[in-house]
């Protein structure tokens, strides 16, 4: 067997050698932009019907060795339409003038594990976001950079804290208790987007129902780890939004797939880029402070001796948020890259050093990264590519979000009298003005009996540090086994590993004010988490060119993946001598959590392109098994099919495509969901075990999503405008849910595959180039989408997935057959809470005191949209991105507390369009009274950049290629009624599915707006 393989390989090599020894000639050429006449600096030149390819050099020239006879040269460059020219035997110099491909219709889009097709033929609304759209404005994490840039995704930031922490929800509700974040794939390798708790729950006791020492929890304000990726290394991002596009990724793809391709080296002389950036962030919105006008007023709110304190402090009014966050937070970034090589070897390397301060003193996020990418031809048939990243992320996020002991700064403000100066006091009597750098021997005034903590002390003494080291290695092998004009046979393999360790340290010294309340002062918690995952796939692709220009591409492959996760936490209270080490605690607990998952899939796909590249048919499928399913050996099948047709048009329309696609994909149960656990514990050291409260169905299996998508893409106005219109319906069957059992079952909760939900949506994307000249260019893009989600069937009763605070005024998401998946309801006690009438929601009269459930709103926005504009004149460019969310609901616990205490800044004098705090508190037991509309307009990004004329730069340095300067801003301005009552309408307490829990603002990290100045040099 081995011999026959060797013979086959030898035959192929022989073919290659024979070709190389034939008569050849060299053609040289130039490639220019048809509008500007400037050289096109990248791309590929191939000979039609041959496997010869060379890169375009950075000066816009190429040189290619071709057979002696007449050849057809084909030039491709991203951003330009490809062009073919026939070169007769007599001609050895050629000039290509390429027209702009404004809408990247000729760029390829990944549609299979190992294949891609040109955008103009793609049957799905696959969104592509390029590098320049992605990194024009710096962001903490790649998902943040995607906000507002394509239709169909709801991207939210959990918190304003530096370092990331985002939620991406693709096309509505895809899961309730399962994973709802998309799958991330970097260069063909699945990477982890795990979220690992920091251990702050031990400080905040946000979730305390378990044991003497609380557990590490999802309310720890954790960062989802895709934030580790360096956005500067990304060449482009492709987004597969639902099952019809993502079926090829099988049982992990129901939430969509985000495919990240990294930058690769280019042949030519070495090129270098250096970028230096400086920035600052400022507090963009605040709760404000109520100033007290008289001792009586102060006494009325705070009781005790507050009136005397008001008089003693001469009625002062301190704005705590200004005093703590007023400074402005500096940021800087230094990055560079190098790239070069020849037709056989290409390399790309990059370096990133980034530091960003948070507006809460002593909070920050650092990101350091090194990357190396290498593409090497092995002979003429094989290309081997590797990419390696080493990433180092460090951050301190301070303290925010839910608590049960008043520890986060914002939790204290609402109870602190503004007439008292709570800033640290130095021995000389002066006050600390820079909270991050207090003087020696500083004393923090106690906020007792008003509040449980002093925010100035909390930010100065608290440590909540996280260090992540991550390595992602990807390898890719392409073997052109056979290449004839009719047949090509290619073997392609991808594989790689993703390993990271996350180290957390939370420390609060015994002198911290909020540490006193429990009698065991001082908290230290350390955590070590390690994730190791690897996956590999091998594919064979056979392309068969039929006569008449039709092409059939057949592929098949196997994918295997394995991942391990281990988290160890040591938690200590009552620290002896305030020591930081956990072993100095007298109350100590250790916790461990582990996961091991394996998955195996096979897939096959057939693509058929015919009718002069107008009709494209695709049929494919995947079979998957995973150890997370109750039956690990059971195989689940996910088929897909699609068709696209480019309608022959002329005149105003330059290209019109109608497309339809259908497919299925799955969403695996979480690790451990299938087990009914026996929990270990003890009675005075005697080991005992008890059955846990959650029992799983014996057949727990993946959720199954079936998506139908259809749309029209049109390019009109001589290629200057493009319209994409997409409608979809996706049904999710076997939705994983956790339902409450009758207590006599012996268990409290039951995990099962139950109901069916349906999402229907519409997406519109329009891009126009109204002006396109050599000097002035203007591109305007509008995106709009909406999604309706309905619970179809399968729910025996109305059901609240997570009733976080099940009180009337806050509301809960409630699933109910036939109703919206994201409806928020609250209990109205007829005649007692809310309006005094006793009419039930169905219109029938009820009795006084009867409790009825009323819908108070929708957790998901009605629609989202954005408007982006890029304007360039000569070398100057201005662009901005405006985003809109219409609808959605936020429950604001912070404002509820300000109102309840009587410290809202609008307690007495109303803001326009709102009742006063006093009026709000009078009705604050009414159902839904603490929920607010989350609509907003946001000026997400604005950038002004200028490229210094090369002649000027060359005067000083002949070797330079370009010098660009730019000023940019992020989250510059928000228009929203919500700003009057809360920090930011995008806030979210915990990353959860929109159908699982209401969006909460609960002692959130304050929001900021950021400005940056960047110098970008290429040489």
């Amino acid at each position: 067997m081995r011999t026959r393989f060797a013979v086959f390989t030898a035959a192929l090599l022989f073919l290659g050698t024979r070709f190389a020894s034939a008569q050849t000639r060299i053609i040289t050429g130039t490639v220019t932009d048809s509008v500007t006449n400037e050289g096109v600096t990248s791309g590929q030149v191939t000979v039609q019907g041959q496997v010869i390819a060379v890169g375009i050099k950075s000066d816009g020239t190429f040189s290619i060795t071709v057979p002696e006879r007449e050849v057809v040269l084909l030039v491709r460059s991203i951003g330009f339409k490809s062009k073919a020219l026939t070169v007769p035997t007599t001609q050895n110099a050629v000039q290509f003038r390429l027209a702009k491909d404004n809408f990247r219709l000729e760029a390829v889009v990944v549609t299979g594990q190992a294949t891609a097709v040109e955008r103009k033929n793609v049957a799905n609304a696959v969104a592509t976001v390029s590098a320049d759209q992605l990194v024009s404005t710096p962001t903490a994490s790649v998902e943040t950079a995607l906000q507002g840039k394509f239709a169909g995704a709801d991207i939210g930031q959990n918190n304003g804290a530096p370092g990331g922490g985002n939620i991406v929800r693709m096309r509505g509700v895809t899961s309730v208790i399962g994973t709802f974040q998309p799958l991330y794939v970097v260069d063909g390798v699945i990477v982890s987007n795990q979220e690992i708790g920091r251990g702050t729950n031990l400080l905040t006791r946000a979730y305390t129902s378990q044991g003497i020492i609380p557990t590490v929890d999802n309310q720890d304000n954790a960062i989802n780890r895709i934030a580790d990726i360096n956005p500067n290394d990304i060449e482009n991002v492709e987004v597969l939004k639902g099952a019809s596009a993502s079926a090829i990724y099988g049982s992990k793809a129901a939430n969509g797939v985000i495919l990240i391709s990294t930058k690769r080296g280019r042949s030519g002389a070495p090129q270098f880029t250096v970028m230096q950036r400086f920035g600052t962030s400022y507090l963009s919105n605040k709760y404000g402070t109520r100033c007290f006008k008289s001792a009586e007023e102060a006494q009325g709110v705070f009781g005790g001796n507050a009136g005397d304190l008001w008089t003693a402090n001469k009625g002062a009014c301190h704005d705590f948020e200004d005093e703590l966050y007023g400074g402005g937070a500096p940021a800087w970034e230094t990055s560079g890259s190098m790239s070069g090589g020849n037709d056989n070897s290409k390399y790309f390397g990059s370096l990133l050093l980034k530091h960003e301060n948070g507006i809460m003193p002593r909070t920050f996020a650092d990101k350091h990264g090194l990357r190396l990418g290498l593409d090497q031809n092995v002979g003429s048939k094989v290309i081997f590519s590797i990419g390696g990243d080493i990433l180092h992320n460090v951050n301190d996020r301070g303290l925010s979000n839910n608590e049960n002991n008043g520890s986060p700064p914002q939790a204290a403000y609402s109870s602190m009298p503004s007439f008292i100066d709570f800033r640290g006091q130095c021995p000389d009597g002066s006050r600390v003005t820079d909270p991050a750098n207090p003087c020696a021997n500083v004393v923090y005034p106690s906020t007792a009996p008003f509040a449980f903590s002093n925010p100035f002390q909390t930010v100065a003494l608290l440590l909540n540090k996280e260090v992540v080291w991550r390595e992602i290695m990807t390898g890719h092998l392409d073997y052109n086994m056979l290449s004839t004009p009719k047949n090509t046979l290619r073997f392609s393999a991808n594989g790689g590993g993703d390993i990271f360790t996350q180290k957390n340290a939370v420390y609060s010294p015994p002198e911290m004010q909020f540490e006193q309340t429990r009698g065991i002062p001082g908290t230290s918690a350390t955590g070590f988490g390690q994730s190791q995952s690897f996956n590999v796939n091998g594919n064979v692709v056979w392309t068969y060119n039929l006569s008449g220009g039709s092409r059939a591409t057949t592929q098949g492959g196997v994918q295997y993946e394995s991942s391990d996760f281990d988290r160890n936490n040591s938690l200590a209270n009552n620290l002896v001598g305030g020591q930081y080490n956990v072993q100095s605690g007298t109350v100590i607990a250790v916790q461990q959590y582990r996961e091991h998952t394996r998955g195996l899939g096979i897939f096959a796909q057939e693509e058929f392109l015919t009718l002069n590249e107008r009709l494209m048919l695709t049929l494919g499928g995947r079979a998957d098994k995973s150890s997370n399913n109750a039956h690990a050996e059971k195989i689940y099948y996910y088929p897909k099919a699609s068709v696209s047709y480019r309608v022959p048009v002329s005149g105003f329309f330059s290209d019109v495509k109608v497309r339809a696609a259908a497919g299925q994909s799955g969403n695996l149960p979480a690790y451990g969901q299938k087990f009914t656990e026996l929990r270990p514990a003890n009675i005075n050291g005697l080991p005992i075990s008890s059955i846990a409260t959650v029992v799983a169905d014996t057949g727990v299996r993946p959720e199954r999503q079936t998506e139908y998508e259809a749309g029209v893409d049109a390019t009109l106005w001589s290629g200057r405008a493009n319209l994409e219109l997409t409608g979809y319906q996706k049904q999710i069957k076997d939705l994983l849910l956790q339902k409450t059992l009758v207590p006599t079952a012996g268990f409290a909760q039951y995990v099962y595959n139950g109901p069916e939900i349906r999402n229907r949506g519409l997406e519109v994307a329009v891009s126009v180039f109204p002006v396109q000249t050599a000097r002035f260019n203007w591109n305007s893009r509008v995106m709009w989408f909406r999604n309706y989600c309905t619970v179809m069937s399968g729910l025996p009763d109305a059901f609240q997935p997570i009733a976080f605070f099940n009180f009337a005024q806050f509301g809960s998401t409630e699933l109910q057959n036939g109703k919206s998946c994201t409806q928020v309801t609250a209990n109205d006690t007829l005649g007692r809470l809310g309006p005094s009438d006793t009419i039930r929601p169905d219109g029938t009269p009820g009795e006084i005191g009867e409790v009825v459930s009323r819908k108070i709103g929708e957790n998901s926005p009605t629609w989202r949209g954005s408007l982006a504009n890029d304007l360039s004149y000569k070398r100057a460019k201005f662009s901005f991105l405006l985003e809109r969310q219409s609808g959605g609901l936020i429950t604001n616990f912070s404002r509820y507390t300000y109102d309840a205490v009587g410290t809202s800044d609008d307690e007495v004098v109303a803001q326009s369009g709102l009742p006063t705090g006093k009026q709000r508190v009078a009705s604050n037991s009414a159902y839904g009274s603490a929920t607010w509309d989350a609509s907003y307009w946001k000026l997400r990004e604005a950038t002004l950049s200028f490229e210094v004329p090369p002649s000027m730069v060359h005067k000083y340095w002949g070797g330079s290629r370009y010098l660009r300067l730019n000023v940019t801003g992020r989250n510059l301005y928000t228009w929203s009624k919500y700003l009057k009552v809360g920090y930011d309408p995008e806030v979210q307490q915990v990353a959860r599915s929109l159908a699982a829990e209401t969006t909460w603002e609960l002692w959130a990290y304050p929001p900021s707006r950021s400005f940056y100045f960047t110098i970008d040099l290429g040489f």
Partner: protein
Amino acid sequence: MTSLLKICAARTKCVTVAALVASSLTLGACSNFESPDLNAATTQDLTGTPTRLGIATAAQGLLGSVPGTNVGVRNIFGNNAITMGIHGREAYNLDVSNPQNIPILYTSVGGSGFKNLTTWTSPYATMNQANIVFKGAGTATGLEDAEREGLKGFAETIKALELFYVIRQTDESGAAVDALESPTMDPPPIASKAEVYTAILSYLDDAKTHLDAGGASFSFTMPTGWAAFNTPPTFLQFNRALRAWVNITLLNYADALADLNASFLDPAKPMSFGAYHTYSTTPGDALNPAFDPTGRQLYASREFADSAQLKSPGGAPDDRFTTKLITLNALTGGATDSVSRYGFNIRYAFKIYPTNTTPAVIMKNEQLLLIRAEANIGLGNNSLAIADINLVRAASGGLPPISDPYVPNVALKQPGVCSTAACAAAATPSTALLEELLYEKRYSLMYENGDRWIDARKYGRIQDLERDRTGDINWTYLMIPVNECISRASQPAGCTVTPPFFANPIAAY
């Protein structure tokens, strides 16, 4: 992959087909794809053929309480002392952090409120595990036959104890007699009070049969609180004591006396001799839920002070009053004499559980003596009853004996407080001795397992329990919890019929 290449080296067309075939083979070939639970053992370890150790730890689990689970008899103690204590007007829970619970605790606002039992879940979770232990005892490896019997007898006794804890509260509302065999089955029927008690007694008698065959020692280890009952013969004494407790609740006096004869009752032993829940600060263990060192939320009824008998005319009050209660003045170091909260004026807190690891009683010698006295009064054996009562009075209260034949000693009552119905009843000879017994039970079993409320119901005295505020309600028994009722197609009476209650304010403190 190489295998498919060789097949099709000559003919490219078949490559894809071959790839698929090869891949399918791979998919099927990677057998044993199962990945175990790396974070805990699973119930699968208890079904099928469990190990001796696995069954032992699960049996021990029936006595505990584990964070994140509902299993274990220790879970019920907080409810017995505090919540049943509130119904019996022994204790008040005035938690400042959860003010929204206060109005529903004492009044009838809302659909659910306090008339519904809240701790129904844990007993059934324990019964479920007891069933699994019972089954596992039959199939486990490495066990002697006697040890299997011992495990079964133990598991059934615990099941009886948990079911008794339920029916003591729901009474006429009834209860399910067992946990479901499988969690997805339809909810079990709600049996009547009589059926439930029959089930409890039969569990106890089945358990006795198993324990009799259980040999000299158990295959598992009892916690220190159960040290006196850690062999099948001694555990049978607990089983019989529990049967006596069940029978006296049903006023089955003769049966109760018969049970007591085989129980751990022993006048020669200390009053406190018995079975206890123990606690520790070891990680993974639990703390005593009734521990409240600073008087933050748990308080004692003022009635205890008013009714305490005196050791001599004009002398110091009952030792049980002085050792079990503390004034707020003493508790706060003189800072305050009383707390006014939610319309209550509080002057006393409990000091029965001075540390967070103080053991909590399940059953004790003192209780058995009083059950024997109660049974003897029921059967008219007053002299026998008086002897037991005097034993308790002397040992626990430091009080002088009562006379035989019994004449209430008014000189030992506190001046000016004999205006309640209970006090007036003391003058009636027919019920006077019973009154005296209920006094002893109230002070001996104070803030332990809610016996005052059960005794008040048993003897028709719910209306005599204090009601401090206008609108406060005394419930005779409780309804079945809402989450048990909600998914039932037809509602049993225990879900819909409001129990008898007394709401008219008698006196406002």
